[in-house]
């Protein structure tokens, strides 16, 4: 009888562990998704890996810090204040993303993809080291929102989890609306299909590309806001790993595909937390990349990407 009882308890705790990891994984995946969208949209329009995107995410953390301090929200957090800081952070990131595109990438667009990539790497180094120079490392971020958590059948769900889900879903819906319903969204999709043809049809390609950068960067800003609320520290190198993971997620889902980036990010987030929960967190990164490699070897264009063979 006791043995039986113990078995049930173990089975139950195994089930709760699993669901706990699902909650954690979805939460991590949602943040990856917000960053991954920037990679995938830029890739869709320019076919470039924007290496500096992870630094836009990092700068978002610092923008949030500066804004929170400047507006007094840091000392006296109100819901409206936090919302204002969040929106202002997104706008700042959007401006930064568009500025990077205008100043560094646009002049390089004609000189080949490798050059564009190196320029992006240079931009990433520039932002990291500038941030290091101005702000230093490991800067504490104020607690903006009270933390509570609920226990649902043994699974802990924190207010931050809910915040991440809520914000991510809202932004996805908004993004879907922008891409599918607005003139600019249509233009973005046209540029993604063929930049030359879009230009011939009178679409202002430069403006569309700048808008794509701004949009992706705003989402990265939202991601960094969510990130620092949960991990209250900002650091010049905080973007490297989430950025890399988000990029992996974008490729996993099929780079250039918006639903692909979201699917890849959720899958990656789940996979990472499962490995952390069941194996060891030290193996987490290896498994993320192993997943990527295995999927690419079977589906060379990613989960939802379309493979376009070279025309002979």
């Amino acid at each position: 009888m006791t043995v039986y009882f113990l078995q049930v308890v173990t089975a139950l705790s195994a089930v709760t562990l699993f669901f706990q990891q699902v909650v954690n994984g979805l939460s991590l995946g949602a943040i990856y998704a917000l960053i991954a969208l920037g990679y995938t949209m830029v890739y869709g329009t320019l076919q470039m890996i924007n290496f500096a995107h992870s630094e836009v995410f990092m700068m978002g953390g610092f923008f949030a810090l500066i804004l929170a301090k400047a507006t007094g929200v840091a000392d006296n957090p109100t819901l409206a204040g936090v919302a204002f800081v969040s929106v202002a952070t997104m706008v700042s990131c959007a401006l930064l993303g568009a500025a990077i595109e205008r100043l560094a990438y646009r002049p390089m667009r004609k000189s080949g993809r490798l050059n564009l990539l190196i320029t992006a790497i240079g931009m990433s180094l520039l932002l990291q080291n500038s941030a290091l120079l101005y702000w230093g490392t490991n800067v504490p971020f104020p607690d903006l929102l009270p933390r509570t958590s609920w226990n649902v059948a043994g699974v802990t769900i924190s207010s931050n989890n809910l915040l991440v889900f809520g914000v991510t879903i809202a932004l996805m819906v908004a993004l879907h609306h922008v891409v599918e319903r607005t003139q600019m969204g249509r233009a973005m999709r046209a540029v993604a299909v063929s930049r030359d043809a879009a230009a011939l049809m009178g679409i202002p390609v430069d403006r569309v590309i700048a808008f794509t950068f701004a949009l992706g960067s705003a989402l990265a800003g939202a991601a960094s806001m969510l990130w620092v609320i949960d991990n209250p520290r900002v650091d010049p190198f905080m973007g490297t790993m989430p950025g890399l993971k988000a990029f992996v997620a974008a490729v996993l889902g099929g780079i250039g595909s918006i639903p692909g980036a979201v699917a890849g990010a959720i899958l990656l987030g789940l996979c990472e937390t499962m490995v952390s929960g069941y194996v060891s967190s030290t193996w987490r990164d290896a498994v993320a990349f192993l997943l990527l490699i295995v999927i690419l070897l079977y589906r060379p264009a990613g989960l939802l990407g379309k493979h376009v063979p070279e025309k002979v």
Partner: protein
Amino acid sequence: MNRATLLGYAALAAAIAIVWAIDIYAIPWTNPYYTNIAIRVGFNLLAVMGLALVLGFTGQFSLGHAGFMAVGAYGSASLALYLNVPPMVAVPLGGLLAAVAGLVVGVPSLRLSGDYLAVVTLGFNQIIVVLVQNVPALGGALGLTGVPVATTFGITFTWVLLGAVFMRNLLRSAHGRAFAAVRDNEIATRSLGVDTTRVKVTAFVVGAFWAGIAGALLGFYNSSIFPKQFEFDRSIELLTMVVLGGTGSLSGPFLAAGLLTALPEALREFSQYRMVVYAALLILMMGLRPQGILGRHELSDVVRGMWRRRASASDGATNAP
């Protein structure tokens, strides 16, 4: 063996002799700070050489080159530490281990192309780092310490010379043409009966070998190795050297490796600003010279071109070819 070949061998022997003459007669009187920079330039020359082959000459976008340095470094250091293999025997063995790793990584991933290949190689790079971190015998995240010190200026640059001649001869052969053919047009290359996958894997394995040599020498120089030294940012640094030097050139990436290794040192006066300046210069150089320092040319072409121009100018000829 014909005369040109014998001359080539003689020139290599002479160059190695000069390196050792410098090692014996000049290095002891040189400021160790500069010797240290020179040796580190040497490691980067070896590492960048392989990537120049893979990316510049074969057109395969690899972002995981530092992973092969890690295999060479950890492989050779373990051989020396655990099996008492003499360091100078362990160095080529480290290179061979890296070449095997190159084969293991290359065979599946070279089916992919472009950015997908880049991401997969980057992934392998990170996997190698995580593997190393999780093996206690390799020191985990803290790294492997107590590696015997054996690398000197002479040894480093002997390897650099051997590597440079290896690459030059390889590139000027049927294999070299096959690499370039794959880079320029894979479909046409296959239509000529050339197994392009094999060609790509060959380039990858050779590139990994020299990265492994660089890693092995590094371990025997610093006496310690850390996983952090071989993360993907190191791969990106090497990539930067190749693109900045010129894809499709060997001496260009050499120049860039020298420049980018020495530049942060030269900027040391600005201490905390140096990485900012470095990054800004990188962006600026890409903008000013998108084809890289030498483009697809070699230093020898440039020198020859200058010589010819000077000669024709003194002849008074205005329209020399």
